[in-house]
């Protein structure tokens, strides 16, 4: 019973802490509401679509495929990304390029974003620096699964 009373004191302390948060944050919110700008904000939340946080330079966002100078994909379809991909979201089909210095190019390159876990291994594995995850696109939600399947055209854009 005595132990329980100590527990009750802690309960009160706990609610005081939440109450303090409420009061302090509410105070700043109210100031804001009346147009008084203070340095402190009432919330740490960022209003995402309107306010965008600058992405870190190494942030991994939507993949893209790079092109050569002649606008062909840089990818030589070595399938190392396919090999290394832990979620098996990449599928590549190779074809023979008439240029003997290129030889191999991807006739199909599919990234299934509904499977992708954005680990970036494909970027690390690529020997040609043909795939990067630096588009900065992070709003990838789509309404159908098919829209999440990115093919060569979409990735080269």
């Amino acid at each position, binding site marked *: 019973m005595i132990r329980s009373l100590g527990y009750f004191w802690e309960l009160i302390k706990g609610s005081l802490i939440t109450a303090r948060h409420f009061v302090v944050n509410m105070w700043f919110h109210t100031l804001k509401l009346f147009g008084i700008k203070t340095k402190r904000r009432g919330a740490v939340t960022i209003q995402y679509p309107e306010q965008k946080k600058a992405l870190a330079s190494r942030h991994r966002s939507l993949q893209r495929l790079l092109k050569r100078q002649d606008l062909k994909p840089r990818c*030589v379809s*070595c*399938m190392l990304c396919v090999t290394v991909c832990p979620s098996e979201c990449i*599928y590549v089909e190779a074809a*023979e390029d008439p240029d003997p210095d290129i*030889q*191999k190019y991807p006739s199909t390159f599919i990234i299934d974003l509904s499977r992708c876990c954005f680990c970036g291994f494909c970027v690390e594995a690529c020997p040609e620096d043909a795939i990067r995850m630096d588009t900065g696109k992070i709003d990838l939600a789509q309404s159908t699964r098919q829209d999440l399947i990115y093919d060569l055209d979409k990735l080269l854009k």
Partner: protein
Amino acid sequence: MESAGMKIVIDDRPVEVEEGTTILQAAKQAGLHIPHLCFHPAFVPEGSCRICLVEIEGLPKLELACATAVRDGMKISTQSPRVREARRGVLEFLMADHPLDCPICDKAGECKLQDYYQEYGLFEGAFKEAKEKRDKIIKIAEKLILDRERCILCTRCVRFLSEITKTQELGVFRRGIHSEISTYEDAPVQNNYSGNLVDLCPVGAITDTEFRFKTRTWFLAQSESICPLCSRGCNIYVDYHPGFTRIPGTAKIYRIRARENLEVNGRWICDFGRYGFPSLEKDRGDKILWKKEGRDTIMSWEKILSLLAEKLRPRHRTKNTSNIAVVANTWMTNEELFLFKKIFKDDLGLKKIFFADPRPGSGDGFLLQAERTPNARAAKEMGLELNPVNLDDLSKNTDVLIIFGPFLADLHDPSSLKNDLDKIRTKVLVSSHRSGLESYVDFILPASGILEKTGSLTNRDGLVQKFSAVCPPCGDSRPEWSVLIELAKELRINAGYYSRLTQPEVILKEMGKEIAFFR
């Protein structure tokens, strides 16, 4: 023993080998691998790659392991710093003249140069000069492409063509750094063994249009199997891709390679076998169908087998089996032929047993045999007579016909087949492939392809070779042995006997008990 054996020490491992053994072979006996590129056990050593150098105690220079015969009391070091340094040096030279286009090279993953670089190299390239530019896509045969930049001039291909096939289509031309492999005045490599050049090439210089750019070697699961395309029974590796989960149709066989078996095929297989595998995967039947009143009904195995058993059982009970006919083939494994014989010949006592095999082709005098079926010998050994199908005999007074295999369609023209088969009331087809027979029969039972089942085959020389499944069965298909066992169970003949035969190995053991040949 003293006279025959030569006692040598390789890397502190004492080995006793026969006289005339090379250091490389001796090391293999000792369980050591000495790297080699130009050496191939089937050819006379060339000694040109210089990567198999080893240090022999008492000799000032490093010696070739591939060409130096051991002498009694030799002390050989394959891993001394001097040797490693020399190998590194050779590798560095090879790399300097190699395009290092591993990402697009089909050999990557099973390339000797990559392996040895991992083992001995791992250096930063010191080669700062311009690499030699050479032709990269040269069609040297119908299915072979030569990349001269990747070529390390081991001349295995040249030696294969001069020592094994003796056709000598390839040679080394020009000299020094400009040396290159070429055909003579654009006369392509044209023999039935050209595919072996791909296996032989230690790097990716010779690639195969059938495999080129299709996949990467590390995706493939290598299974040991037996080539079913002729009665030679060549040992093969089947490289199977288990497929990408989300992309249909990616699970398939990508290539066939020769597997060493000196008793049967040496180290080679013919191109007929090597490039014949697409036909094994094409036109597969994968659904159990009952053409009930002209409409296809998809069935389950249990239902269709009990339906069939109902048709056969009364005849078996009344010993009235003269109006049942069966057509088998010798693409069936030993186990299947045995079960076939047990059930239809011994238990049911059928008289009308026919065989429909693929038409014989022509042999090439080396490996390929005219007999294009893998197991005819086994049928003979079992006492089955390989009666060819006579449509008149087949259809005369026949009520139930069971056909195994699709080959009947190739042997007879469709109109006569239709005429004769229409006389029979119940026609059952157990086949792995679609052949056109489907339209004449009522019951279609899909059988597994030969690479999808486990069992054994007997080649023309009477060698029984076991093999196991390369890939899962296609669709609803089942191996014939399992169909036969289930059918026997449904017929309730010898129930205890057949329920014991659960696996091909068990069947083979049972065969051994009954037929001395398979012991």
